[in-house]
Structure formats: structure tokens, C-alpha cells
């Protein structure tokens, strides 16, 4: 029955369909919250679904002079990376479907795949906005990846394991947001950077470079990138909640926690002005990385004393 279980886990729950729909639901909540913060009504509940179906059914224009195979495959890899990462995290507070020691590192790299693919996709098309967008996306990735890794390793160190399930089990009894507030902040902001949300949306800043790396994508490719992003939003929220906000719990409570986190994220998105790319990098390396490191030192010193 192992095979059947694997198929179900991959296609329906928690991978595959479930995570796609859940991701779209989170995306809707995000958009709706931003709209409410801006005193508007905002999109209807099925908006991300309609957007995705419409894009999938739309003509896909493949520009000439691009590597057509890369152009088609990159969005698939991006979505696959995001979907695969869902298998290792405690979606809606349930035990992860698969688990092995060191899966935290694998998950983080799977999550980076989306940005990498976006960057490659942008560099693949010859459009100038895409090129600038790709450069910015990769620059931003190099700036937030290290601090975020440090931030997520904080819980790993106190839990003395690299396994997501063990860390979230440990976090159940320790609200790490209290002991490691800086790590929490860096992780949340890092998640926003990963998803290129405002104020870290310089790689796809509409008023400067149209749609960044995805300017040339239409139809299916765009839909897959969008879906990948919404899946990553869900996975990222789950990860941060599991690590910092009291670990896995019953699904309802866990869901409520992720929603609370989403409110904070949406608030930050609507209240802050976009940073220039050099300001983003400066922010991460000057403050993010240093603060996370400082927290490490304090933690290690504390452990040494205790």
C-alpha cells in the first residue's frame, strides 16, 4: 500500500491538488486583505482560480530567438519545486508526508527553485525588462537566502535536529517567537522577499520594468509561475508558523495561526513603499544577516552557560 499512499500524497493530499487549491485560497486571502486595507472590496473568492484557468486556456506565445525548451520547461520546474516542498512541511498542522533527517535543507532549496527558474526564464527571453527583472530577482535571492537560512536554522539548533517534524514537535512546547524574535522577523520578511511581495517587489516592479522576468510569458507559463508562487506562499507560511508560532497543533488552530501571519504579511505589503534593489540588499546584509548572526551568538552563549 506504500505506492498507493505515495500516489495519493503526490497527487491529492498534501501534495498536488490540495496544495494548489489551498495556495490559491491563501492568495485570495492575501489579495482580499490588501484590498480591505485600501478601503476596497477586493476580488471575489474564486478569483485566483478563474485567473489560473483562464491563463491555462489562453494562447501561449513563444517568442522567437529564445530557447523554446527552456521557455516551456522552466515554469514546470518552478511549480514542481514548490509542490515537492509541500511534501516535507506540516501542511495545516498535520505530520509531513515524508520526512528524513536534513529535510529542512532540502525544503529550503526546493523553495529557492522558483526564484532560480524565474531568473533563468527572464534571462532566457531577450526582452530588456525581463533581463533587468532576472538580474534583480537573482540579486535579491543572494541577499535574502543567507539570512533566511540562518533564521530557520535557529529553531533547528535549539531542537538539535535538521528534521522539520522534530523541530515542529519541539516548537509545540516552546513558542520560539518569544525566545528568537529576530529570527522570526527575518524569516517572515525573508518569506516576503522570496515571494517578491511589496516592499520587496523590485524584481517585478510594475512601474519600472513592467512585469520583470515574466514580461514575455503568457498563458500557461504565466499560470504555472503564479501557481508556484501561491503554493510557496502557503508552504512558507506553514513553515514559519510551525517553527515560531507554537508548532503543529490541531488543524483549525494551525490554520488560524497561518491566517494571522498572513494578516501581518498583508499589512506590511500595503503599508510600506517599495525598496530599491540596492536598499533591499543593504537591508538584508547590513541588518538581516547581522542580527540573525547576533542572535546565534546569544543563543550559543546561553546554551554554553546553561
Amino acid at each position, binding site marked *: 500500500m506504500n505506492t498507493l499512499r505515495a500516489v495519493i500524497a503526490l497527487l491529492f493530499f498534501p501534495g498536488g491538488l490540495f496544495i494548489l487549491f489551498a495556495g490559491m485560497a491563501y492568495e485570495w486571502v492575501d489579495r482580499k486583505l490588501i484590498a480591505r486595507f485600501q*478601503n476596497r472590496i477586493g476580488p471575489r473568492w474564486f478569483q485566483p482560480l478563474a485567473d489560473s484557468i483562464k491563463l491555462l486556456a489562453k494562447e501561449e506565445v513563444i517568442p522567437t530567438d529564445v530557447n523554446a525548451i527552456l521557455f516551456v520547461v522552466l515554469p514546470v520546474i518552478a511549480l514542481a519545486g514548490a509542490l515537492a516542498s509541500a511534501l516535507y512541511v506540516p501542511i495545516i498542522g498535520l505530520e509531513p508526508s515524508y520526512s528524513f533527517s536534513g529535510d529542512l535543507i532540502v525544503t529550503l532549496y526546493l523553495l529557492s527553485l522558483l526564484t532560480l527558474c524565474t531568473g533563468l526564464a527572464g534571462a532566457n527571453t531577450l526582452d530588456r525588462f525581463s533581463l533587468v527583472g532576472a538580474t534583480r530577482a537573482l540579486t535579491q535571492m543572494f541577499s535574502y537566502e543567507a539570512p533566511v537560512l540562518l533564521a530557520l536554522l535557529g529553531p533547528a539548533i535549539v531542537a538539535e535536529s535538521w528534521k522539520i517534524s522534530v523541530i515542529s514537535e519541539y516548537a509545540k512546547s516552546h513558542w520560539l517567537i518569544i525566545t528568537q524574535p529576530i529570527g522570526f522577523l527575518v524569516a517572515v520578511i525573508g518569506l516576503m522577499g522570496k515571494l517578491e511581495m511589496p516592499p520587496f517587489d523590485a524584481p517585478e516592479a*510594475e*512601474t519600472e520594468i513592467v512585469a520583470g522576468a515574466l514580461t514575455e510569458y503568457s498563458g500557461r507559463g504565466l499560470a504555472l509561475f503564479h501557481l508556484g508562487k501561491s503554493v510557496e506562499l502557503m508552504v512558507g507560511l506553514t513553515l514559519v508558523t510551525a517553527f515560531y508560532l507554537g508548532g503543529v497543533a490541531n488543524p483549525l488552530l494551525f490554520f488560524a495561526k497561518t491566517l494571522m501571519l498572513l494578516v501581518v504579511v498583508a499589512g506590511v505589503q500595503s503599508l510600506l*513603499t*517599495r525598496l530599491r534593489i540596492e536598499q533591499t540588499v543593504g537591508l538584508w546584509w547590513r541588518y538581516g544577516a547581522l542580527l540573525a548572526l547576533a542572535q546565534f551568538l546569544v543563543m550559543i552563549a546561553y546554551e554554553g552557560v546553561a
Partner: protein
Amino acid sequence: MQSQQGNKFTIPIGPQHPALKEPEHFEFNVDGELVTGASVRLGYVHRGIEKGTENRSFVQSMYLLERVCGICSHVHATAFCLGVERLAEIEAPPRAQAIRVLVAELERIHSHMLWLGVGAHEAGFDTLFMYSWRDRETVLNLLEDITGNRINYSTNVLGGVKCDIDREQAAAIRQGLDFLEERTTHYLDVVTSDMMFLRRTRGVGVMTYDESQRLGAVGPTARASGVARDLRVDAAYAAYDKYPVNLVTETAGDLEARFVVRIKELFESFRVIRAVLDDLPEGDLTTRMPRRVKEGDTISRVEAPRGELFYYIKSNGTDTAERVKVRTPTLPNMASVLTLAVGHQLADMPMILVGIDPCFSCNDRMVSVKGTLDSQCWTWEQLRQYGIEYYR
């Protein structure tokens, strides 16, 4: 127009670009994220309005000229009306002049709030954009209530105005102004103290006093650099001598100063509108206007929300103007964008561009720089031919 060319990577902005709601083609040479050169190609919105006035009567021309620009439509019509009225040696009744001032100031409010929102949108601060546009609806509602249309009010007729202000409308305006004043105070706080927003505006696109004089900047852009020039004060037209305006200037010359100048001008507008409502002269709305205008030529200048608007009108004694020349405020300001752009980040380009409050539909006039074209009278066919060749 060009400033410093290099053979680097070129980023085109426009004709279709989300930062610009109007088509205009800018090219920025960049070295990484740093802009090393900028050039612009104008003329996408060139429609041939000045020539168009030559086969329209004065009445028709007024509506054509009102549509030079949709945002500052009233000032265009006012400038034309004041000029033609001067040629015809009549004067609009005082009540009409006061209503012109009132609508012009309401329009200034709508234009500045629009700009505040667009500026915030370019910086990626959509919440400010949404709120300022939400509040802008208040003034648009007032305009719709008074004149019958939200934009392109068509308030003016030659010799007066069409719409009157009754007591109910006056009360509605006062009420709207109270709300707007409260919100504007809040926005002044936002643009001067929001840390993240200031990171994008403070010290960006600095134009010193000397530079603004050299580049010939006008309007709020120049006033943000300390140039105390405002036609409403210097050469009061319509009823501005009766309702004096105070000059607003800032000295920093950066984007923040431009935001502050425009927001402070809003307070001035509120004050002027209240003064007009308090002391609205009684009387007729129009005087009789002859269809044929006496021979002669005149210059008419008004202060548009973006700066000095200049009209030259020549009549040959018929009901059609022989020549109308328009100089709009965006054209002199455009030079400053190209100069300021060099040395800034690519991310600042939309902000610097929008900082002058560009209005390309105003901007795209045919200008003959001294010596480039023979000075002669061009016929409609010649112009069309020139247009076809130029745009090929």
C-alpha cells in the same frame, strides 16, 4: 532631446508602459542599475490642435483647446477665453470671473491629488495611491455637481461661464473642502514623515535654484527649487486680484519638496475657494459676445496646475482664429527630467519622471527651435506630409 549618450544597455520606457499612462518614448542607458544617459522621443499624442483651430470658429476652438489636456482642461479654456475676450474688447462679468477662479482651483485640487496618488504608485506605495484617489472623488463629485461632467467641465463660454453656483452647491463645496482639508493634513504628514516613502523621495532628483533657472522649469517643479514664480500672484488674471493667493515655495528641490509644495498648494486652494464662496459677486453669468472678433493679436497667460500656460491668439477679423500658439508647462519641465535622470538608479526613473507631473498630451506640440525649420506659414497638407515623414 538628449543628454549624454553612451553605448550601454538601453532600457526603453514607453510608448506603452505602466508607469506612464500616456505614450511617450524614453530611453535610459544604464550601467547596471545606474542611469548614464537619457533621451526622449516626443510626439505620440501630437494631434495637430493648433492647426485644427484654423478651420474652426472661436466657439468650436474653445472646446478643441479644452481637450489639449484632460486633467487641466479648464485652464486651457480659460486662457483661450480670456485672450479672445480681450481681442473682442469685452469682459466677462465679475460673477463669471469668480466662478472661473473657483473651478480652476477645484481643478487644481483634483490635479494635485491625482498627482500625489500617481507619485505614490510609481514609488510602489499603492495604499497612498488608493486613499488619495478615493478622496479625490470628493472633488470630482463637486465638479460633476457644479458643471455636469467629472473631467472636461466645459464651464467656459466665450464671454462668461455656463454654470452657476447656488447656495446648496456652495454648502456642499464647503463640506467637501472640510473633509479634504483634514485628509490633506494627513497626507502632508505621510509624505514628510513616512520613513520608507522618504527613502524614495528625500534627496532624489535634486534640482537646485540655479539649475531650475537654467533649465527653465516652471510651476510647482520650479517652486520646489525655491523659484518664487506664480502667475496667480505675479500677473493676476480673471478674479485672482480679488482673491489673492500666497506663494508656496520650498528650497530643497528634491522629490520630497515637490510633494510638499503641491500639498501645501492644496491648502491655498482650499482657502481661495472659501474666499470665493464667501464673497461671490452677484450678477450675470455672460456678456454678449460677437461672433466675429476684431483684428489683432494677444497673449494670455494663466497658471495651470503644472505651471505657466501661455496662449498666443491672432485674429483677422473673422469668426476663426488665424493663429493660436500654445505653450504648455510640461515642455519646459521636460528638459529637467533628462538632466536629473543621469546618475540616479533605474528604480528612481519613474519617480523623477512623474516628479514634474508630466502631461504628454499637453506636451506634444510642434515646436520649431530657432533655425531648424524655415519660418513660414505651413498649410494643412504640408503639415500632414511633414507628419507622415516624421513618424515614418
